[in-house]
């Protein structure tokens, strides 16, 4: 049985245009496919990953055009629905940014900041990205 890992993702929108996704969410999805057992907590600026309807026009340089620009809400929803990875967002970090829970993709769970240490006890490994 795989070690349960809690992944706190804080670094946000780092190289997502060049990679066309978030490298950590991508890594966790790929590892889950290999049998890992992950849970994700989005905190800090990364809470914005769960906001539905976000998107960006692809980068264009001269005649070169990006055709697969990142869509972070799609990737968060993929974690929840396809990979069965629980995804939490830190409630206070959401409120600090004026984002309502109703703006998030379905299935994202709110987690009060004070509940985070208690969550640590449920996992064999805690990774802070």
């Amino acid at each position, binding site marked *: 049985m795989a070690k349960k890992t809690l992944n706190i993702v804080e670094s946000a929108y780092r190289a997502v245009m060049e990679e066309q996704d978030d490298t950590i969410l991508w890594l966790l999805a790929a590892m889950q496919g290999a049998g890992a057992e992950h849970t994700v907590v989005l905190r800090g600026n990364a809470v914005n990953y769960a906001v539905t309807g976000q998107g960006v026009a692809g980068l264009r340089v*001269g005649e070169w055009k990006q055709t*697969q620009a990142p869509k972070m809400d799609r990737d968060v929803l993929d974690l929840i629905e396809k990979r069965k990875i629980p995804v939490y967002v830190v409630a206070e970090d959401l409120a600090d940014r004026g984002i309502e829970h109703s703006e998030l993709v379905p299935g994202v769970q709110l987690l009060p900041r004070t509940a985070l240490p208690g969550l640590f006890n449920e996992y064999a490994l805690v990774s802070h990205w």
Partner: protein
Amino acid sequence: MSRKTLTIALMDPPYESENLTTAFRILDVAARRGYHINVFAYEGAAGLAFVRQTPHPNPVHGKDVAEENHPTTKDQVAALLAEAEKNGGKVDWVNCGMCVDERGVNEFVAGTRRGSPADFHAFVEASDNVLVIPTK
């Protein structure tokens, strides 16, 4: 009216930050306006024009190489050079020589060249404006 000359110094390596996306957006506009553009690619940015970058598939997204159409900075550099030329400008893209050596990325997109801090100094002296985008 004479063409403006803009110098940009870059430090971030490819695939590590959003700084380069911002830089390429600025460079693209400058090229469309026919500006003369100087780029000093320092430290990690010396890998931007490395010609052996290869696009990859995205198995998490279920896309093969063609569908994923993964961006490579070498293609963006080549497109920048072509766009500037089309609009009557030119790009002098210098890859820091010591930086490329230590990283083993000494094969560049055609039209870029190996250089040194002396080139950056010359760029600064000859430019209407200079933008440094440092790594953090």
